[in-house]
């Protein structure tokens, strides 16, 4: 049977929003990650069939970011491209779509990934003002143009930032995480410990070169950006404990220290058909063995869906949780990670050996460019499986709206 393999993946440094990449728009970041993935995987651009790319906070100018990558890089214009969205799991969708296209035989080589520039979120007008502007642009006479604005009040002129609240619950992401911490009785200290671990392991991953190997330098304005900028090497439990809760100041547990930060960055993965990868003599191939998406009621535990996607993906792979040697789990919040462990156990899927989880840190320390994170976890997982010779690994990402993704990878002989 045809199947897709990961031939390589690279990402830009993940950088605090509003800093080094502040004036780089999302297309520039996406192009940088994609061009380097093509170069470092030693792949001629003429051999690519398709690009699938994720992006959450979409600039108004790019209706289809994926296609813009093709055109911006001057790749062969015959490469068709589509943009996908599942909030923070967008790049997972890009990767599994790509894998599907390869499996059914409609493509042999697909670039998949995602990008986010939270420095450049699209700010829009209020719906009332926006409708008035459209009406005015369609009106033929000047008086009619003017009358389009007759009902606009001063308050309608205020710009509108992209939504950070769940539309169905009205809760922010942080409030939803507080809710999960409450339901699963996850205390502040456990969250801070997980966060500390994330920073320590990320620092170790950079120090021993494992992370450096998957991060490409971005040259801009005669300077270079080489490293992730969120990692706090000097942080301690005491320091984390001293931070004040952000979302529920009176009773809350979620702080800036145990949540993932606003980040700019992009990540791209090259997927090939196994047949082609082998014909090209590529080694260390990691196949997409199975995947699953699941969704939950956002009003319950917004970010718990991976706990439901994992058993489905495992059953599709014909594996038990104990056979998974490595797990890369997106850390939206430490509370969400620890809740997922609990629910998996409670539901009888099994207990995850935490030593196998996020061995080079997670989104709390590395950063979380929404659209890119799914491609980062898959890349890191595949690379570490190769290094350790781990046969099976799993990547999971939770997403706004109550969606969740789980992807099972297999190291091929």
């Amino acid at each position, binding site marked *: 049977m045809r199947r897709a393999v990961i031939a390589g993946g690279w990402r830009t440094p993940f950088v605090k929003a509003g800093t080094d990449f502040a004036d780089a728009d999302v297309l520039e970041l996406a*192009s940088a990650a994609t*061009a*380097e993935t*093509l*170069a*470092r995987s*030693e*792949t*001629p*651009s*003429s051999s690519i069939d398709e690009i699938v790319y994720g992006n959450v906070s979409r600039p108004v100018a790019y209706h289809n970011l994926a296609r813009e990558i093709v*055109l*911006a*890089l*001057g790749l062969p214009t015959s490469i068709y491209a589509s943009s996908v969205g599942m909030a923070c799991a967008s790049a997972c969708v890009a990767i599994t779509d790509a894998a599907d296209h390869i499996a059914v035989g409609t493509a042999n080589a697909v670039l998949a990934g995602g990008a986010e520039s939270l420095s450049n979120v699209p700010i829009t007008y209020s719906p009332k003002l926006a409708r008035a502007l459209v009406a005015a642009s369609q009106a033929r006479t000047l008086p009619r143009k003017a009358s389009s604005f007759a009902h606009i009040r001063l308050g309608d002129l205020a710009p509108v930032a992209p939504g950070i609240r769940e539309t169905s619950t009205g809760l922010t992401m942080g409030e939803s995480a507080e809710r999960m911490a409450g339901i699963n009785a996850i205390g502040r200290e456990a969250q801070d410990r997980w966060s500390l671990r994330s920073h320590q392991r990320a620092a170790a991953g950079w120090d021993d070169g494992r992370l450096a190997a998957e991060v490409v*330098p971005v*040259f801009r*304005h*005669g*300077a*270079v950006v*080489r490293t992730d900028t969120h990692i706090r090497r000097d942080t301690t439990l005491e320091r984390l404990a001293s931070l004040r809760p952000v979302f529920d100041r009176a009773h809350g547990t979620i702080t800036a220290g145990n949540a993932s930060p606003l980040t700019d960055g992009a990540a791209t993965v090259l997927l090939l058909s196994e047949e082609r990868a082998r014909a090209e003599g590529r080694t260390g191939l990691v196949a997409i063995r199975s995947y699953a998406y699941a969704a939950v009621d956002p009003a319950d535990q917004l970010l718990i869906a991976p706990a439901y996607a994992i058993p489905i993906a495992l059953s599709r792979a014909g594996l038990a949780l104990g056979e998974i040697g490595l797990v890369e789990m997106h850390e939206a919040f430490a509370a969400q990670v620890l809740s997922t462990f609990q629910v998996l156990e409670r539901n009888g899927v099994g207990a995850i050996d935490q030593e196998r989880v996020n061995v080079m840190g997670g989104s709390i320390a590395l950063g979380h460019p929404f659209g890119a994170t799914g491609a980062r976890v898959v890349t890191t997982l595949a690379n570490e499986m190769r290094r350790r010779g781990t046969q099976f690994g799993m990547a999971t990402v939770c997403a706004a709206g109550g969606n969740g993704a789980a992807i099972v990878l297999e190291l091929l002989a």
Partner: protein
Amino acid sequence: MTVDIASIAPAGASYEPGDGVVGRIVIDRPNDSVNSIDPPLIAALFGAVAAARAARPRGLVLASAKPDTFSGGADLKLLSIWPSAAELTEASRAMQRLCDEIAALPCTSVAALNGSALAGGYELALACDWRVAADTPELRVGLPEVQLGLIPAAGGTQRLARLVGLPRALDLILGARRLSARRALRAGLVDELAQPAVLERAAYDRALKGAKREPAGGRSALERAATFVAPARALALRQARARLMKETRGHYPAPPRVLDALAIGLARGMPAGLDAEARAFGELATSDVARNLIALFFLTTRQRRASSEGLPRADAPRDVAVVGAGLMGSGIAQAAAVAGMTVRMRDVDDAALARGLGAVRALTTEASRKGAIERRESARVIARVSGTTDYSGFARAELVIEAVFEELGLKRRVLGELEAATRDDAVIASNTSALPIAEIATGARRPERVVGMHFFSPVHRMPLVEVVRTERAEPWAVARVVAAANALGTTVIVVRDGPGFYTTRILGLMLGEATHLLEQGARIEDVDRAMTAFGWPVGPLALIDEVGLAVARHAGDTVAAAAGIDAPRNAVALLAEAGLEGKRGGAGFYLYGGRRRVPNPRVYELLGAAPAATPPDVAERLTALFVNAAVRCLDEGVLRSAGDGDLGAVLGLGFPPFLGGPFRYADARGAALVERLRALAASAGARYEPAASLASGRRFFS
């Protein structure tokens, strides 16, 4: 033989009545994609104009049936069909009459420029009332005849000045400018831009609704005054003439004749101007200068095919890599990206890489500002170049161009690294100006895929690439390098490997001889001044300062090692050892501290020479040595042809183009040159001994 258009069988243009309201004259010369204007086409156009006059449409569109080209101008074969000045003047008058007839049509006429309209092609368009051009990046319009030693001779000088004013017309014609569609619109050379798909309709509408028009002579009052008010015009012409003499040193006869035709035409009226134009054309077209420039033009246009002669067919690579992000490396990377290639550029550290990528961006932005690259395309050009400090991305490259510092050990080491990092079927090209490729490839695992690729600096301005072929090089490898260099838009010559190849070898000999003359009492500034007066763009000693004494010394040493040539004592080495660096260091043959450079007295001291009299024939003598060396390269098989030798010397080394190149110069001087060389050999040394083919009286071009 006289010029009798009426007796020529017409072909290549016809009148189409269309809907009866707006007619069309369509130019479609058989078997010629650029609609070159030849006698049958002129005859056909006369017929078409007569038909249009008889049909009395309300409007007329002049259009081309060729995809993406209007007309490239006169077919230069005209010059051999009508070889005498009198005939060529007659031919010019015929074209002028044709344009006059178009202009005199009672209906509104519109030229629909679907692609480039140059020289005679644009003159036809100028005869129409209006010009509508397709908004495409490739389109160019202009009157670049002076580049070939000719002048616009179908009324172009007269009509352009009356359309856009004298100052702008002078700038366009004397500068031989080819304007992009956008710039042509801004300059007034075209009146409207239209999407290519709607060009025909735009031209139709304008022919239907537009009026006949009287040219205004420019947009501003100042432009009109300089065109139509005698004292202002005289001033403009005087200034232009002074500038011209300074720039051309009188070597190019065409530009002054443009001024003459304009002065006469604007003072005494169009017919007098046309007469001056036609006479000048006949005289210029039969001059040696025009013959030489046209010969070079033909060589250049044929070279694309000629350069790959005897080689297997090869496609230009899509994926290339460049080692070294310095001036050369970044220039090569940028040129490759402009040509649509994906480029991986390597240097040792982030800082060097950031500088190199910055240089690619700067070159591209500058080209975009000048209109050479469309703005959106320039962003893609920049995006096609990526940088790395390791060799990642090199395994996909079909061609790797190594552009590291000119040092044999370093180049060998990099070659070894490249052999490990690239595919076995990748070609490795070494960019060097002098180091023999075979020596660089000594110890290579696969020397048969190592080829020399000598770029000139700065890459984006120098139109030549010298491809160096070793005895062991596989033909497919050479073919790929030639295809790549052609794709970059450069003119390619393929030469045999050896110290200094062709260009550096003959240049090095001439520079060495120039320093030798100093030792014999010549003055630095006299030598350089004599050479620039002769037509060289820069004097030899100033040139050594430009490239730097270290580089010149290195090239000189390499060239001196060439067997059988008794190069004089290496004076450059002497100066370099004394700490002189050249222009960058502030002191070489000249001192560069002040506002103007002055000769460096220390040079005479170091050479143990006393500056006295410079021989009056110094330029002729150095040029003769240069030409002799070039012929020797042909005799030895370093060069494949005399044409390659002329192209290499003119495009790479600045040999005066009006002389056509060293081989054409040798043909022109004939026995006199041989005599001169023999005399010099007797008095100055055996290095002047004429090369075998010169001595045998061989002619290089028939």
